[in-house]
């Protein structure tokens, strides 16, 4: 690897100076794609005929990248890692794809994901399990599994992701890289295969905060095709990174971060939380105020259920277009009902079917009040609790998950009911549409772990700047996965 371990700015400078050409970068990235495909199974499609692009003043011009396979790409297979779309070649680009194209980005592959983003393991895609480049017996988490594996392995400096619960930010932690989802609606969702519309975000996986800022600067913008998008013209993420965080206020939540909450903590959990506390000290060293706050445990405990109810409900409706009638493999049957049933029975993995059943159940008129509407109410309470914190604090800082990447053979992991909130709290970022970024903050069992910073809506510049400053205090930016 000569170039693909470098940052976007470094590559741009080399391209500008003529030290390397876009063609050379694309060639190397494609070679690495094939290598990582063999090792980690990270891609649905490797775009072998990817063409180099003219280098302009845009930092992304001429540089290779990957796209998650739920991004609609004109003329390029886009499956959402599902058999229901296994041969689907869209005839239109997602708005974000169009914007990256205009910036001069070169797409070299489409990355594997959990089927339609519904999963957090990287094991449910129709092309098989994605392996963690740090340890092939472990998962990348999901659903942006292939994007995380590829960026961590150094296939290119960035790949796009999508995040409905934690699908960018958790794989980033498990793979030792940066994962950022901006405020809801900052990047248009037009052309992103939907999972749960009110929770879906687009975002990016990179190896440092500045790269994340650069990529999202190029993806964002109001879009007439997405009524939930908003004008972010005045937000300049990269330009706002100055590392000046003195006086900023952070808080962490006692009910999540204190070891005393866990009755039988594993060694990894202990290490992970101790490491988190070290990170808090680094924040203090930077002149930030860091305080412990308390949030109602009952409310926190409801979080995972709220997510399941809302995301499954929206998903079951969103994916009702997958009938095999207009696109996707046509099902067999004597009538349309049987044809749709056949298509959906064969097309979806068991995990998705289970979620559809939950989604339908909670939307049924006799259940809707008890489950769906109550979930929406609790969602509002959780968001309000966080908004209250943002009155006083710039951001909430929390550890990601209960430790490093889990084993693919789940039997090796101790399942702990106590850690549900620790595992799932990133979903609050989706409930509130908050800007949220995960950066690597150390190693546990020789594997990377991450820390997350989540701020208030539209405060992306502030959130990224805090992450940027903290990143400088640690040695994990631009790290490439080394097999352990």
């Amino acid at each position, binding site marked *: 690897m000569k170039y693909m371990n470098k940052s976007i700015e470094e590559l741009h400078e080399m391209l500008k100076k003529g030290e390397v050409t876009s063609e050379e970068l694309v060639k190397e990235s494609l070679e690495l794609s094939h290598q990582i495909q063999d090792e980690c199974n990270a891609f649905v499609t490797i775009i072998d005929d990817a063409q180099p692009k003219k280098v302009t003043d845009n930092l992304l011009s001429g540089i290779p990248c990957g796209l998650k396979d739920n991004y609609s790409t004109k003329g390029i297979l886009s499956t959402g890692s599902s058999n229901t779309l296994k041969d689907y070649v869209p005839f239109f680009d997602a708005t974000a794809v169009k914007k990256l194209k205009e910036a001069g980005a070169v797409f070299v592959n489409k990355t594997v994901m959990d089927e339609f983003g519904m999963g957090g393991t990287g094991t449910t895609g129709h092309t098989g399990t994605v392996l963690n480049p740090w340890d092939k017996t472990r998962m990348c988490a999901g659903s942006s599994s292939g994007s995380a594996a590829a960026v961590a392995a150094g296939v290119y400096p960035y790949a796009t992701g999508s995040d409905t619960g934690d699908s960018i930010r958790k794989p980033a932690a498990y793979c030792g890289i940066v994962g950022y989802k901006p405020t809801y609606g900052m990047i248009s969702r037009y052309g992103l295969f*939907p999972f749960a519309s009110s929770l879906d975000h687009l975002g990016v996986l990179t190896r440092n905060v500045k790269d994340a800022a650069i990529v999202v600067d190029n993806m964002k913008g109001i879009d007439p095709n997405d*009524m939930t998008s908003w004008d972010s013209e005045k937000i300049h993420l990269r330009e706002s990174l100055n590392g000046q965080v003195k006086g900023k206020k952070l808080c962490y939540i006692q009910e999540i971060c204190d070891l005393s909450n866990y009755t039988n903590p594993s060694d990894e959990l202990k290490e992970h939380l101790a490491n988190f506390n070290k990170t808090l000290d680094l924040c203090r060293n930077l002149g930030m105020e860091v305080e412990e706050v308390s949030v109602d445990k009952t409310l926190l405990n409801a979080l995972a259920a709220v997510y399941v109810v809302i995301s499954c409900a929206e998903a079951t409706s969103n994916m*009702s277009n*997958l009938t095999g009638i207009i696109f996707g493999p046509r099902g067999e049957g004597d009538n349309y009902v049987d044809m749709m049933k056949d298509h959906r029975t064969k097309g979806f993995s068991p995990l998705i079917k289970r979620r559809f059943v939950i989604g339908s159940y909670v*939307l049924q*008129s006799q259940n809707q009040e008890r489950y769906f509407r109550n979930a929406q109410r609790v969602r509002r309470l959780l968001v309000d609790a966080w908004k209250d914190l943002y009155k006083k604090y710039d951001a909430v800082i929390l550890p990601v998950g209960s430790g490093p990447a889990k084993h693919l053979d789940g039997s090796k992991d101790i399942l702990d009911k106590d850690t549900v909130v620790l595992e799932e709290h990133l979903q609050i970022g989706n409930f509130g549409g908050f800007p949220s970024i995960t950066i690597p903050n150390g190693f546990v069992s020789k594997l990377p772990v991450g820390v997350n910073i989540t701020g208030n809506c539209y405060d992306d510049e502030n959130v990224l700047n805090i992450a940027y400053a903290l990143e400088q205090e640690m040695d994990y930016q631009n790290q490439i996965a080394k097999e352990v």
Partner: protein
Amino acid sequence: MGKYKAKIGLEMHCEISETKTKVFSSAKNSYSEEANSNINPIDMAFPGILPVVNKEAVRMALMASMALNCQQPEYMYFERKNYYYPDLPKGFQLTQETKPIPVGIYGQVTFECNGKEKTVRINNLHLEEDAASLDHYDDFSTIDYNRAGVPLLELVTEPDISSADEAVAFLEHMRSVYQYLNISEADSKKGQVRCDVNVSIMDEDLDDSDPKNWGTKIEVKNVNSFGGVRDAINYEIKRQTKLKENNEYEQMEQQTRRWDEESGTTIYMRSKVDAIDYKYFVEPNIPKFKLSKEWLEEIKASLPMLAYERKLKYINNYNLSDYDASILVKQRDIADYFEKTISLGVDSKQAANWTNGMILSYLNSNEINIKEFFLTPEMLKELIDLINSKTISSKQGKEVFAKVLEKKKSPKEIVESEGMMQITDTGELDRIIDEVVNENPEQVAAYDPERPKILDYFIGQIMKKTRGKANPVTASQLMKEKLANLKK
């Protein structure tokens, strides 16, 4: 009926045909015979598409809401109605349920039925998207997505209607309202208007203000013409009455039936217990948006005159009879044609006679819309002017009218090319009269002003020489003067 009275409620679906684009996509909103020509990825629910609300469709829906005296909501929401059907690409229809409040609730409409005034309460009016259209053949079906996403207004009445006549009068009234608001052609032939009919019967002597007495509601779906509505209601009343008389009514469960036009009967579809659970929930891709007071007031101020108001204007300002005015306002296109003609300076009575007479009968017998009618108000004025100036006779006017439509030429061109110009030039007529006098000395000698019958003979001779083009009144006048001079 006798012992029973009917409770009838209507659900009237009418496409908004006058927006440029569909309700949630930028595809053209236009009726087309060519299948799948007005479509885009949104209409076909390709993965990743998102709905974008057409503000113009919302504006038109609000106009309708106001015209029906409904309350308008503070915020606009749309909801998903989830079900699987091949004509529904997304697997859900974007519509509005009653919670949150749709584009209109609790209105009322007053209209005339058989000379009597009738008021029907509106439960709600909502804006939704139409589905694709299906055609079924022996062993396959075809889907045309042109209609998918066309804005659709669904109006739901309270069961205030008591007969098929009232139902049809209501629908005709509503068609006129939509046409006058200029939001829809409301043309059943284009499939723009479709109805579901709810019918129940109850004993005549029971109190119908108490819903308990209303009987068992039967919903009849897919009635696609006003005639069908009439037939379906009458069929259901007869069917239910028979069940009452056979003491089978009480066993009948609340159900949905389908109108079968061919057999003229309703056919059982499903019982209430098998009703589909549509799992409504608010569409998350469309943020709720506030309807500003200013916008609502602006829309209210823009509401055009409806049929009833125009009729009064025609009677009071144009001195038309109630009968003539009623016919003119029945369809907005016709009334607009009439008003355009008037605005060109044509006498209102003459314009009304032509519009209600020759024009309407031509449109009806040729089954065309006045928008497709060749003879414009400008041409009508030309024609009426030709008659008024005595260039042609009234009788010739009718011939010219037919020829204009047949040859697609203006009235003047027809009159010229067909040589129909009357000879009113007295010099020319004098010359011809002299000829006639010279050629018929015996008849001239026999002329007696007291017995003018022989005058007809002379006029006949003049007409012969001019091939009918002489103006008969002028010719007769001149001939009389000539003969009188000769007698002196």
